[in-house]
């Protein structure tokens, strides 16, 4: 089981959280101008890296707040947790989520 640190409540078991997929996927700035392919990209395409991945988690049985986690998808190591208003922390081996 993963041990994830909520930025407000501290380390808690994975079962207290809800997974929200890739982080840093902004809503399109000019939605009316998007082609079908660009909409498909926004709605359906997400990164799926082997290694560090920035993703969203929600502390559903705790403070019920969303936050971001950098987690390695191979080792399952939780590398960092950070608030939504904080930038993605730099990691030497960072991969994924670069677009």
């Amino acid at each position, binding site marked *: *089981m*993963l041990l994830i640190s909520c930025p407000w409540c501290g380390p808690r078991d994975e079962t207290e959280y809800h*997974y929200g*997929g890739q982080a840093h996927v902004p809503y399109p700035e000019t939605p009316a101008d998007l082609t*079908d392919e660009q909409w498909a990209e926004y709605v359906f395409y997400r990164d*799926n890296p082997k290694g560090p991945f920035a*993703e969203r988690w929600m502390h559903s049985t705790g403070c019920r707040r969303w936050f971001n986690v950098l*987690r390695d998808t*191979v080792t*399952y190591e939780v590398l960092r947790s950070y608030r939504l208003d904080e930038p993605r922390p730099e990691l030497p081996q960072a991969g994924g989520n670069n677009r």
Partner: protein
Amino acid sequence: MTAEPLPEHPDFLWRNPEPRSSYDVVIVGAGGHGLATAYYLAKNHGITNVAVLEKGWLAGGNMARNTTIIRSNYLWDESAAIYEYALKLWEELPEELDYDFLFSQRGVLNLAHTLQDVREGVRRVNANRLNGVDAQWLEPDEVAKVCPILNVSSRTRYPVLGGTFQPRAGIAKHDHVAWALARRADEMGVDLIQGCEVTGFLKDGDRVVGVETNRGRILAGRVGLASAGHSSVLAERAGVRLPVQSHPLQALVSELHEPVHPTVVMSNHVHVYVSQAHKGELVMGAGVDSYNGYGQRGSFHVIEQQMAAAVELFPVFARAHVLRTWGGIVDVSPDASPIIGTTPVENLYVNCGWGTGGFKATPAAGWTFAHTIATGEPHPLNAPFALERFATGALIDEHGAAAVAH
């Protein structure tokens, strides 16, 4: 009662050739899908200058890790068509391949525990029948007749309110399926190359002309990806982005028991699926871990919940011991349906996104993927499963409709 003995294997299964410098077709991944594709390329299209490249050992990926449930009771027409085609092929394959892989049509029960489950089940039975798929709705007493050890009492937390039953569904011995396909493909001249990892692609403009591997460059007229959990990682190296996410999915087996469980039982609501293997182990699975992962192990709480569900449904299992648990990595698409077809890169084809349920499709996946690679055009059965559907919006949304929660 005693368990069935397993069949003897033929002495000779396949050669282990060195990779040649070029092939008409290179298939990446020697799981069931890659092997079936090679088999049908040779058998249906006469294309035998083919290599199947496997980074590990033959059929050691999800093919070796799945719970082997075969059924075709899908809701949507496109899915019913391809899975039913697969089921018809399963019914012929043991004889065609001359290999007893213990395909056992013992039926699959999908239980309903809520009014909504009941409505979904009845709807699916009707849809299945319209598509020529055998399906019945069973009331709780009829469910108990099919599987007497199932607890259909109304005093459980989530009582069994009925279930759908597909009598032609069942299980097969997965390793033997792979070996049976491998032997025939090999006999027809296909090179099955283990310990050969594809690390990149050779391209000429927008066209793929070969692959880079840990055993050197191999030129190829056409390249087909059948690499399951790693499909997006690999496709990205060819400059193709795929809308799939890789998740760990676990299963487990008990020690051997005498035959007590005559069918396959699946429940989405309490989320467990159970069958009894030919030797006597209870084989159980549940859902994927919610997060992305490539670690081939999953969360313990998933096992805990699936065991709790199993013991409530089958009180007789309360003292059974877990012998072994394992995980595989499955690639899940946004509409819980596979992607089989062409890619924006010429001569590069993809078969992926089967998520938690691609074993049952193995022969049809191979048949249609071989057709697509051989002709450059989709077969009518896989045309709806093209990558383009994510942009056109013509999704085949089997999430929740497929009689399994993904």
